[in-house]
């Protein structure tokens, strides 16, 4: 009678069955694990009798060493899944963050390469406009919220306790919880894709379940400007907003943990005067998060309500679309410093190690970090010069924006001075540091240019902006993620990476970033609009545009090759790299740069050495 209804009914029943089966499976698994934890007594003949005996452990005749079948199976796996699912150890949680960030980075990176492929041709020949819009939206969101933020939270989790001499993060369980909120939020933000994967997998083998194809990837851009984000009917946008909200909760939990750890869990030896530079930046970053993310959270909830419950916060009869921009950028500008400050901290930490000198002007770097932390909340409207807000407001924001360039310049100056007369060793992390500082200069200068109101009016909607911020997000932020991964690789894996391959990787990355994003500055100056899938019909197409786009895409390919080199090096070296046998793989003691995390590592190696007397050790 109602064929459509029947179809949905069948699908709903199928969905309920699947969910039921999953729940049942989860229940069974958790029961098995729990009984497993009691020593697998269930399988033995005498177990019935003491089945009610809660203190089953005491009654075990084998002293608890005989493992159940499940335990033995787990022991044979290369990685223990239960351990990784239930761990609250700060280093394990940090490692989980790294793994998550890696997945997100590769995913977002694929988006970027696909964007660049579309732009190889002036028309929309590869993907359609809809897909293109989805690509830059998910690319931006994935990179900012799920790659960089987790990567640095991972650094904080792993290394902050080592640096401040705490045994653990202040709230280990909150910490684990904060991590485990991230995978579901990533899935929510990119839900359309995930359900489609299932849909396609099922469709390949049989029926096509239409429910799984309902969600289209969001096309709002990472700024989710009203009224567009309110008008789009796609239900996936709601899931995206909820996912972002959830990731905000996770980020705030992580930040609270960082702040409390630094405040109360410090070793008495570590005073405010002797805290190292990385902990300072992580601490400041956590402070910014604490003030910025709640604003995002509230704005997101208001947007969800506008979309679903008829409120009018961001409609003209309510606060208007500009209200969204104020709230969003009050979060959004501090967010860019949330991303960049830890990267600055890593430069300040790693650069001196391979320059053989202590960081020049330590105090000023700390002050500039704190200054950025405060000022970052006072510049949000520089993202809104093109919207026609009150000119008096605009000029005051221009002034503050120029002021915030000063602390960044102070840092750059101090890094360069640290190199001065240093004994520079061009290891891969050092190459990345120097390259990062150089690219950051380009990103910073173009930023100062944009801070000027009349210039911004012209360039705001163009590729110039994309070029500018990528010199920072890719040029220094992503660069320092790579540098840190090399610098701490021995500590994380007890093996050394292939140094030559790493140096090649570092150089190709620097070249790739420059070749990719410099043409974008030129495109922008020529008036090429951003967020356009095609430029065949753009006003005043310039004959150089295709060439510049090809160059940029070529650069992106170089970045892709470089990332592949890194991935290969890291995977291969973690498997079979040369074992590290000293707590000081970088010879830092020579120059008095030996820091607390390496001291911890040395101590741990010594402890292992005491335990292992001979033979080959299982890693």
């Amino acid at each position: 009678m109602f064929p459509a209804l029947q179809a949905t009914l069948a699908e709903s029943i199928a969905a309920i069955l699947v969910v039921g089966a999953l729940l049942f499976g989860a229940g069974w698994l958790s029961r098995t694990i729990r009984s497993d934890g009691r020593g697998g007594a269930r399988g033995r003949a005498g177990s019935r009798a003491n089945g009610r005996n809660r203190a089953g452990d005491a009654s075990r005749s084998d002293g608890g060493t005989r493992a159940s079948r499940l335990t033995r199976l787990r022991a044979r796996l290369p990685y223990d899944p239960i351990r990784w699912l239930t761990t609250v150890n700060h280093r394990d949680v940090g490692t989980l963050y790294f793994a998550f960030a890696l997945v997100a980075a590769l995913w977002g990176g694929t988006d970027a390469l696909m964007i660049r492929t579309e732009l190889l041709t002036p028309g929309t020949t590869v993907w359609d406009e809809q897909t293109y819009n989805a690509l830059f939206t998910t690319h931006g969101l994935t990179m900012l919220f799920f790659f960089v933020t987790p990567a640095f939270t991972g650094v904080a989790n792993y290394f902050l306790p080592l640096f401040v001499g705490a045994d653990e993060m202040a709230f280990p369980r909150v910490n684990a919880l904060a991590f485990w909120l991230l995978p579901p939020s990533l899935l929510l933000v990119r839900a359309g894709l995930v359900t489609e994967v299932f849909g396609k997998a099922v469709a390949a083998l049989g029926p096509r379940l239409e429910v799984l194809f309902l969600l289209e990837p969001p096309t709002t851009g990472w700024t989710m400007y009203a009224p567009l984000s309110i008008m789009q009917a796609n239900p996936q946008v709601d899931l995206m907003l909820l996912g972002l909200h959830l990731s905000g909760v996770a980020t705030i939990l992580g930040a609270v943990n960082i702040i409390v750890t630094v405040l109360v869990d410090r070793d008495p030896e570590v005073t405010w005067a002797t805290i190292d530079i990385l902990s300072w930046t992580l601490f400041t970053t956590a402070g910014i998060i604490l003030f910025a993310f709640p604003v995002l959270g509230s704005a997101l909830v208001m947007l969800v309500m506008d979309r679903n419950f008829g409120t009018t916060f961001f409609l003209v009869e309510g606060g208007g679309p500009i209200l969204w921009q104020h709230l969003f950028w009050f979060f959004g500008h501090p967010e860019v410093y949330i991303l960049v400050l830890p990267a600055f901290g890593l430069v300040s930490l790693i650069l001196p190690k391979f320059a053989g000198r202590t960081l020049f002007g330590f105090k000023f770097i700390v002050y500039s970090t704190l200054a950025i932390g405060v000022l970052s909340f006072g510049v949000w409207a520089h993202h809104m010069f093109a919207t026609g807000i009150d000119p008096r407001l605009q000029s005051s924001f221009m002034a503050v924006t120029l002021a915030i360039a000063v602390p960044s310049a102070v840092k750059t100056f101090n890094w360069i001075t640290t190199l001065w007369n240093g004994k520079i060793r061009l290891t891969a992390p050092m190459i990345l540091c120097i390259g990062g500082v150089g690219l950051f200069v380009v990103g910073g200068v173009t930023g100062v240019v944009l801070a000027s109101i009349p210039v911004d009016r012209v360039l705001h909607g163009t590729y110039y902006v994309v070029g500018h911020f990528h010199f920072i997000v890719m040029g220094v932020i992503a660069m320092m993620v790579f540098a840190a991964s090399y610098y701490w690789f021995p500590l994380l894996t007890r093996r050394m990476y292939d140094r030559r391959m790493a140096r090649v990787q570092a150089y190709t990355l620097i070249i790739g970033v420059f070749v990719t994003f410099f043409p974008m500055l030129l495109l922008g100056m020529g008036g090429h609009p951003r967020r356009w899938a095609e430029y065949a019909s753009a006003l005043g197409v310039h004959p150089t545009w295709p060439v510049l786009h090809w160059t940029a895409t070529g650069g992106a390919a170089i970045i892709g090759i470089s990332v592949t080199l890194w991935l290969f090096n890291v995977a291969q070296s973690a498997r079979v790299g040369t074992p590290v046998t000293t707590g000081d793989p970088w010879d830092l003691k020579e120059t008095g740069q030996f820091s607390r995390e390496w001291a911890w590592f040395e101590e741990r190696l010594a402890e292992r050495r005491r335990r292992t007397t001979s033979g080959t050790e299982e890693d």
Partner: protein
Amino acid sequence: MNKPTSAIVGGAAGVSVLSVALLLIEVETRSRIGLFAVVARFVGVPGNQALGFLLFVAAGTIAWPLVFVALEAYLPLGPDPAIRGVGFALPLWVAFVLLGRGELSGAILIVFGVLTLFAHVAYGFTLGAVYGRLSGETEARRPMPAYPDEE
């Protein structure tokens, strides 16, 4: 574990990685590539996607890993089985691109080539790494010494 069994387990792991990668590519490109049809064409049953996929999984789990074990000693780029696995997967990728390409042309062919190359390299690497670990090949060749600098 003996060599053929380890290779089959490695093949199963590799095929899982490869299938997930291919699925992601398919969805991410909004089905512009039509990878299931590609797979079906590749294994020689154009038009029958379900059968094509089953054949594909079977080949990746059983046939190729066994060939890999048989050829292992002759493969270049040794001795690490993971690297050999990559070398082993490259001809498979060439066949995949040539046989599966279908009507694709223009810029999208680049995406198709690059992404499927990644997926195949991941297959080969996983196959070899798991195989090496389970069969003891890897550990036997590069032991992790217990701190040789100890005096």
